[in-house]
Structures are given as C-alpha cells and as structure tokens.
C-alpha cells in the first residue's frame, strides 16, 4: 500500500520517534493524535497512541470497546501495527511512588489521606504522570513511534515543567520549614521567622486548625523522599523532548481565542528551538459563496430552482442566507489563521482540516480524515 509522505506534515511525522500533541480542551487533540498514529502505522511502523481522554467513540472507530490502561492492538488492515493505551493516572502515580520512595516511606505515602485525594489533582500531577508513562514506553524500545495526547492545560508549560514544579513544591524553603523545622533554627534575616516559628505556626493554625497543618506536614515529609527520583526522571524527560527525534504538534480550532492560546503554546515551547513542528487547525469552515454572488438578484437563483421546488423564491432566499452565514465564518476562520501565520516562523507548517459534517464513528471516517490531513494537505 502506498501512503503519501509528500506533504510537510507527513514528512515531519515520518522522521520522529516521539510526537506530542498539545492544545486547549475540545479542539480534537485525541482524534488528531489517533490520525497521526494511523498514518505512520499504515506506512509500516509499530506505533502506540497514548491518550488521557476516554474518547469512547474514537475507541469504537478503531474497533476497540474502550481505551484501557493496558496497550491494546488495533485490528485494522495495515502494513505496520497500531496500538492504543489510556493513561491511568492513579496507577501511574502509584508506580512512581513504588519506584522512587525508599521502602520505609512507601506505605506511609500510599496510605496517606492527603496523597489519596491529591495524587491525581495536585498541580502538575496529571502532566507528570503523562510524561512518566511516555518515558517508560520510550525506554522499553518496543515502539517505532509514540504519539502522546496531552491533558488540556491552560498553562502552556505545565507539561514540560510538571516534573520540576512538583519538585519545587516539595523542595521550597517554606515547606522545608514546615516539615523540617530545624532547617531555619538559628538563621537570621528571614523576617517573620526570626519572631519564632512557633508564633507563625500559632497564627496559621488559628486559620487552618492545627490538625490540617500537621497532616500536611506528615504528607510532605514522606513525599519529599521521592524527590531525588522525580528530579532525575524529570531531567531525562526534558532531555528526550528537546532531542531531534521528538516534536510538538499544536492542535487548535480556528476560534480566535483558541488560536491565541495556540500561539501562546508556540511561544512558550520555545519558538527558536524548533520544538513545535507543526500546527493542525481542526474544524475550519472552508466553503460559502463569493461576495459578488451574494449581491446578485435572488431571481437569478430562483429561476434555476423552478422545476424542483414549490416555492423557489423562498428556497433561493434561504439558500443565500445560509451560504452568506458560512461565508462569514469562512472569512473569520481564515483571518484568524492568517494572524497566527504572521506570528509563526515560516518553516513551521500550519495545516488545516475542513469542518466535517458528521462525527468520525468508524474506520472509514478515520481513514477519510487521515487522507484529508496528509494526502490532501491544506496549508495556510
């Protein structure tokens, strides 16, 4: 089977080992990730797509009942192999604890009530879990390509910074003060702390209750034992992501606010370092009628409809109304995409997908989308 690699996006994905799709929520990130994975599997590679979204309809389109925490093989006819896996946050994070915590604090962390509630919702843990799983898959060497669908983040850097931020939170001076009160004993120049740790603790506990402070402190001192491991791993992931075999693809819709966020991702990921390989803009309105045609008398159109409709004039009017609405959307979408182009380096392709009139719910739909994205590549 011949699969085109002549488009810029096709060329990009054909020479990578790790592709990370980033973008705001609801822009079709999961579907785009699956289509990219499908493209390379069709070209003969062994590919895995790692998603954080249960996206049941997409799983069904791939012939799976649902995405699960275990890698599942997609049974579609293709040259290579396509595997899909969902990120199980809790399990993934527990694994991190088991791996990095010293045996004596392992159980203390896993059974801590704060850990139980917050291991999946602490700032950055979701991103951390995703990058951890990505690295495991990479290290295993089992796949030629890993496509990662990231959690929708409002903060562009969350994904890259997660390992460090988590570390910072545990390591910051303020927290050390709480769980290792001796650190600050006898030191000068710490402002309020010279008044005495007890005083500050008393005021704080008036606000929070002494018990909350205590619980939190126990949690942190246990959690801090993980820290060296987390930091080391964080460095390894960062290193992998900055190598030439990895690339980020920013996914968006043409909505101006969403595109603004996409541009922000691009800026933050480092526009100078070619970290972002391409933009994929989904759901672009690319039809309508020309302004010139809009100004034509309705009768020109209604006469062409005479034989088919009972009330051709009214139908003609409605047709023109609808078409003019979509023309407006088309203009808005392309204006917004051109704005993006002006802010992006010329060698980063901005590829767009037309707005499909129906959902992708089977393998044919997915294949149709793949052809649109790669074979019929449309760029701004």
């Amino acid at each position: 089977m011949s699969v085109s690699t002549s488009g810029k996006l096709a060329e990009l994905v054909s020479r990578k080992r790790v592709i990370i799709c980033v973008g705001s929520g609801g822009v079709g990130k999961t579907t785009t990730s699956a289509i990219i994975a499908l493209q390379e599997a069709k070209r003969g590679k062994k590919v895995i797509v790692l998603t954080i979204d249960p996206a049941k309809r997409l799983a069904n389109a791939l012939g799976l009942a649902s995405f699960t925490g275990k890698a599942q093989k997609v049974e579609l006819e293709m040259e290579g192999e396509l595997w899909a896996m969902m990120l199980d946050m809790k399990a993934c994070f527990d694994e991190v604890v088991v791996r990095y915590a010293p045996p004596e604090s392992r159980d203390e962390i896993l059974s801590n009530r704060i850990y139980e509630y917050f291991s999946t919702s602490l700032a950055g843990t979701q991103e951390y879990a995703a990058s951890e799983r990505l690295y495991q898959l990479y290290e295993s060497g089992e796949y030629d390509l890993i496509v990662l669908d990231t959690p929708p983040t409002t903060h562009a850097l969350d994904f890259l910074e997660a390992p460090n931020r988590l570390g910072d939170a545990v390591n910051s001076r303020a927290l050390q003060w709480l769980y290792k009160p001796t650190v600050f004993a006898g030191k000068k120049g710490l402002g309020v702390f010279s008044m005495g740790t007890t005083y500050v603790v008393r005021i704080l506990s008036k606000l929070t209750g002494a018990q909350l402070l205590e619980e939190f402190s126990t949690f942190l001192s246990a959690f801090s034992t993980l820290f060296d491991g987390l930091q080391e791993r964080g460095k390894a992931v960062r290193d992998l992501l900055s190598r030439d075999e990895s690339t980020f693809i920013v996914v968006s819709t043409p909505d101006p606010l969403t595109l603004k966020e996409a541009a922000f991702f691009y800026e933050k990921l480092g526009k100078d370092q070619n970290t972002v390989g391409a933009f994929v803009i989904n759901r672009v309105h690319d039809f309508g009628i020309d302004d010139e045609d809009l100004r034509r008398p309705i009768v020109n159109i209604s006469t062409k409809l005479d034989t088919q409709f009972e009330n051709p004039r009214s139908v003609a009017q409605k047709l023109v109304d609808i078409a003019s609405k979509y023309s407006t959307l088309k203009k808005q979408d392309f204006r917004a995409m051109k704005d993006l182009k002006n802010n992006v380096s010329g060698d980063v392709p901005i590829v767009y997908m037309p707005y499909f009139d129906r959902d992708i719910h089977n393998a044919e739909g997915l294949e149709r989308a793949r052809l649109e994205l790669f074979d019929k590549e449309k760029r701004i």
Partner: protein
Amino acid sequence: MGKTTVASAFALSCAKRGMKTLLMQVNAKDRIGAIFNQDPIGEEMVELGPNLYCVNSTPASAMREYALMTLKIKIIYRAVFENKIVQSFLNAIPGISELVLLGKAYYHAAVEKRGKKRRWDIVVLDAPATGHGIFLLKIPSVVTSIIESGHMFEEAERMKAMLEDPEFTSVNIVTLLEDLPINESKMLSETLQEELNIAVDYIFANKVLSNPFTEEEENTLHRLEDSDTLLDSLFQSARFHGARVASQKKYADILKEKIDCFTIEIPYFFDGADRAEQIEKISKIISTQLNQTGEVE
C-alpha cells in the same frame, strides 16, 4: 462551551427579574468585563447594571479577605501573611485556593448582609471547567474527611451544608450538542448528584442551530445534482448546515435520555456581533424558557 457567556446571561436574567445578583468569576482571566463593554473586572466589586454586580476573585485576594475576617487584626495579617515564605507555603497546600474561593462565594451567599436583610438574592458562580469545577465543589468534603476540628474544618462543614441544600445551591451545566461534551456533562451530573449530593437544576445547550428549510425542501436539496458552480456552493452550505442540525438533534435526544433535567437551548449566533447585545438576547431567551416551565418563583 460558552460557560462564561451563559453564566453572564443567566445572571442578567436574574437581575431583570428583580433579584439582587452577584456574578462571580474565580481565578480566571476576566472576560465578563469585555462582554458588558466595561473595563476588566478585578477583585473590586463593580456594578454592571441595575441589580447586577460582578467580582473576579483570585485565591490571593480571597485568602486576604478570609484571613482578615478571621484574625480581625490587620497588623498580624501583614506580619504573617505578607511574608513571602508564608505565602509560598500557603500556595503549596493542595486545595487551599479552591477552599478560600468557595468560602468567598459562601460568605456572599449566606453571610453578607445589608441592614437586616441578606445583601444578595442570588450568587451566580462561573465555575471552572468540568474537572477543576468538580474539584472546587468537592473540596469541603475532602477537608472534612481529612481533619476533624479547627476553624477551617468548621468553615468546610458549613460550606458542605450549603452545597448539599437544594433550596440553597444548584448547579447549571453548560454543554454543546456534540458527542464529547454531552458525555462529559453526563459524567458531571452523576458525580454531582450521586457522589457530592449537589442538585443539578438546568442544562444549557449552547450554540444550537435551526434549520430554515422544510423537510420536503431538505429532501429535495439532498437529491439535486449541482448544475453550476453558484448552485453548487449554495447547496454545499445548505447540506452542511442540514447535517449539523440533524447531528445536534440526535445529540439533543441522547442528552434527554442521559440526564433527567430541563434543557434550555441557546441559539448559535453566526455574526460575532456586539457581545452585550448577544447577552441581552440570551438572557431574554432564558427568562422566556424558564417562564414556560413555570419554574420561576
């Protein structure tokens, strides 16, 4: 989904029905100021119109208000809370931002008074998106399950009681008539009602399209071969529109099946026209639909 738009329009419709309304944004980049053609809204409360006020609260500002209220003495607050180390410590306690933000909503809704009367008849909270939104509403029960005493425990207990009282609190869910959003909404309403014991009142289906063609016309349109380029592009738009309408209709039915709530449909606005005007229109639609159900007290 258009959560902020719907929250603004809902608040406006409440204000127009004579309720003293406070519209609250939490930890968000202000968008409501722009919607009402005003300057960006910060932590200072501003008047948007008759009966309608808005505030955009950050964890830092809510924390300050809360600490001042609890500690009463400004000088202690300054000495302790304006210290950088203490600040970064507070920032690192998981869930504390959510707790103080929800605490602020609780204060306005249940405590704050003007004379002998409550200051607000209704507080409309533009909550964060699904995952974070659940986390916000869950935080009081998390706190009360971790600790058993202290000031924050008592506050959390009061907030939990407020959230679980259907006479006092209800959640409105904003969704789109598409696959992913309606599944997320179903998950959200289940979590709220079954796990958190919080009532769900209305579903707002945003960006709903309507089809101007009759069924017969629609069928003919699908049968026709395009005879020239102008007709071709006219038909293309009409068919696309028809397919989107049909797809929304299908998901509206699924939504009804999945969530047992009154759905208010908000039309799609094609022209990116004046936002304030749009909000005005949507608020009227909300009032009318609520009137029809006789659900307005």
